């Protein structure tokens, strides 16, 4: 773990870049330093590999002061990625990536073999190996920068605004790629950005710094959105905080209705039985959504596909968030969002109203989770609220989300609402409330759903849903009434 202990950086001219900053940077997670220009975020990052020496305070790496070891040994143990990649224009892509292995004294052959492996890992075509940086696009260059930083397999990765210089589309690709690589490698990443959206998307923990190098808030992104520490953080987060926060609420528990779904080859009898619905979702014979229609406009055996209304963007329950579900509902002319499975088959539809209720329930859960977290700051515990009836909680619904990553190696459990965060280093048992068995599970997710009784969260009902996403085999735990999520641990 990297511990920054009340570090100050004061320049000879008196300007203070970083002011008594303390941070605990968790292992194998992405910690984002974010803030306006002049907030000392880059300085902080550069103090970790001693590109900048602190004036006061110290930085500990696994309990030892980083000044204990020779500076270049320290730097070689930390990958370093900067804006514009900083590639060596006189060296081929392969040799650029092989830089640190060569510095560590590996043979040329071994270094290049490792470099080739990394090119593949970051999604670079092997044909680019012999090219020079000027022949690559900005996005490709940045991938090379990441590969170069990873070449010697350092446990720590320092990234200084690595994606700021590329256009938004490429940036999104690079961000997704980074998350994918992080899922595979589990590095301790410190990431500097001025873009709060990037911070929220990438960060396991986000440190918001204010001008003058002071820490404003250090929290998981969802908590940042739900409970900004002060008006500075709130302003910095910008508009749509509420909507953006929905990204952290799972859509898995939404109660889906299947009745309004009809296949395009449905017979007249079936159509007649559904005639009281305001709209019907028409699918192809395989169950893929085609579009909405009013029931009386459908004639059995003669459905005109061109007449159907656009169904908006479907969401995948369990994978997508409430934000995606809401977006689908808002985009749909009928106000209903379409849920589909990984293969694209419609598995249900859900109304804006139902989503709105789920949001309300999620909010109250999160609020209660926070209240508990304040009293009992026991990390790794999913917020549980079945029996407790804290202030503001209208019902007993709750959500806990557990994710076991990498075969249970680094299982990470995240309690919904971001109030409590659980991490477990060992085995399958760590992810709370998982429906799958053992360490085999790629991913375990427990998400609560909307209440079983629409129209109110007062019932104290709750739903736990487990999905084992292994090999697409969706082991559905179904919704179980009254299950205390703790019990599922």
């Amino acid at each position, binding site marked *: 773990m990297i511990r920054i202990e009340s570090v100050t950086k004061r320049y000879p001219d008196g300007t203070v870049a970083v002011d008594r900053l303390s941070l605990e940077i968790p292992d194998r997670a992405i910690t984002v330093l974010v803030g306006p220009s002049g907030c000392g975020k880059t300085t902080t990052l550069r103090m970790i590999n001693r*590109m900048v020496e602190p004036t006061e305070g110290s930085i500990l790496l696994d309990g030892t002061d980083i000044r204990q070891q020779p500076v*270049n040994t320290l730097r070689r143990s930390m990958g370093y990625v*900067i804006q514009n990649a900083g*590639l*060596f*224009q006189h060296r081929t892509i392969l040799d650029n990536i092989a830089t640190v292995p060569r510095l560590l004294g590996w043979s040329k052959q071994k270094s290049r073999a490792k470099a080739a492996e990394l090119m593949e890992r970051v999604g670079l075509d092997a044909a680019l190996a012999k090219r*020079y940086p*000027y022949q690559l696009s900005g996005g490709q260059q940045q991938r090379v920068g990441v590969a*170069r930083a990873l070449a010697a397999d350092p446990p720590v990765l320092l990234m200084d605004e690595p994606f700021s210089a590329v256009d938004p589309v490429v940036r999104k690709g690079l961000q997704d790629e980074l998350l994918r690589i992080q899922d595979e490698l589990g590095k301790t990443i410190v990431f500097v950005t001025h873009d709060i959206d990037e911070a929220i998307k990438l960060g396991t923990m986000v440190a918001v710094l204010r001008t003058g190098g002071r820490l404003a808030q250090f929290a998981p992104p969802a908590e940042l959105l739900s409970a900004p520490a002060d008006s500075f953080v709130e302003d910095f987060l910008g508009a749509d905080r509420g909507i953006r926060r929905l990204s952290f609420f799972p859509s898995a528990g939404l109660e889906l209705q299947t009745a309004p779904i009809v296949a395009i080859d449905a017979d007249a009898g079936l159509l007649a039985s559904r005639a009281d619905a305001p709209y019907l979702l028409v699918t192809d014979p395989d169950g893929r959504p085609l579009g909405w229609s009013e029931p009386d406009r459908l004639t059995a055996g003669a459905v005109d596909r061109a007449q159907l209304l656009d169904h908006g963007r479907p969401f995948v329950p369990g994978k997508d968030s409430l934000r995606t579900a809401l977006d689908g509902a808002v985009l749909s002319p009928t106000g209903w969002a379409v849920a589909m499975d990984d293969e694209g088959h419609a598995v249900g539809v859900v109304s804006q109203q139902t989503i709105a209720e789920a949001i309300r329930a999620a909010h109250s859960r999160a609020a209660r989770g926070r209240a508990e977290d304040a009293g009992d700051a026991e990390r790794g515990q999913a917020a549980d609220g079945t029996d407790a009836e804290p202030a503001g909680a209208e019902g007993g619904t709750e959500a806990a989300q557990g994710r076991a990553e990498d075969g249970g190696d680094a299982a990470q459990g995240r309690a919904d609402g971001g109030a409590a965060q659980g991490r477990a280093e060992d085995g399958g048992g760590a992810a709370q409330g998982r429906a799958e068995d053992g360490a085999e599970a790629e991913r375990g997710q427990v998400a609560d759903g909307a209440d079983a009784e629409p129209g109110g969260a007062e019932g104290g009902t709750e739903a736990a849903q487990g999905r084992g996403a292994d090999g697409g085999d969706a082991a559905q735990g179904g919704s179980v009434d009254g299950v205390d999520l703790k019990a599922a641990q």
Partner: protein
Amino acid sequence: MNVLNFAHAFFSDSAHWHGYDGIPTRLAEHVRYSLEALLFAALIGLPVGLVTGHYGRGGNALALIATAGRALPSFGLLVLMFIWIGFGLLPVMIPLVVLAVPPILVTTYEAVRSVDPSPVDAARGMGMPEARVLFQVELPVALPLILSGLRTAAIQIVSTATIAAYVSLGGLGRYIIDGLYQRNYEKVVGGATLVAGLALTTLVVFWAASRITVSPGVRRSS
């Protein structure tokens, strides 16, 4: 009569092809003086330029040296040294070196200083020792400009070594100076042609050197 006729007459006279005043001897002398002067100048200019450029200090001092180096009349310096020191190689070498150092020093400084700082930052961040940062990151990128500084210096040396015949140095300038005294215009033009040819050869040599030593990644991207 025109210049071409003179040159033709000069080169077709077989007497000009051997002996201590023959073309091979004079050419060898000229090349030797020039190479020696360039070597000394590079030994001074390159290290100082690399180090000052790497640390980005001393720019103002170097700008003064550059202007002073240009302002000093090479011919005047040559004559002055000759009067002070007398005959020999030393009074010639001093001005040749003194005049060749500023272009090498200043371009090397500029070349290293103007290297894109981000790869240098990346190199340091990866734990590359300072010396390797200079030689493996900055130098390869700065090389085209450094070579152009060396080329300017070399051309200047070849040119000034010609004038040095006035103060009794050998080399191709002998033909021009002697020819002017003897009112032998054939000799003058022949010498001038040879000197121009040597200067152009110098250009070609430097062009070839940069083709060989500069990485394609640098050549194409700048």
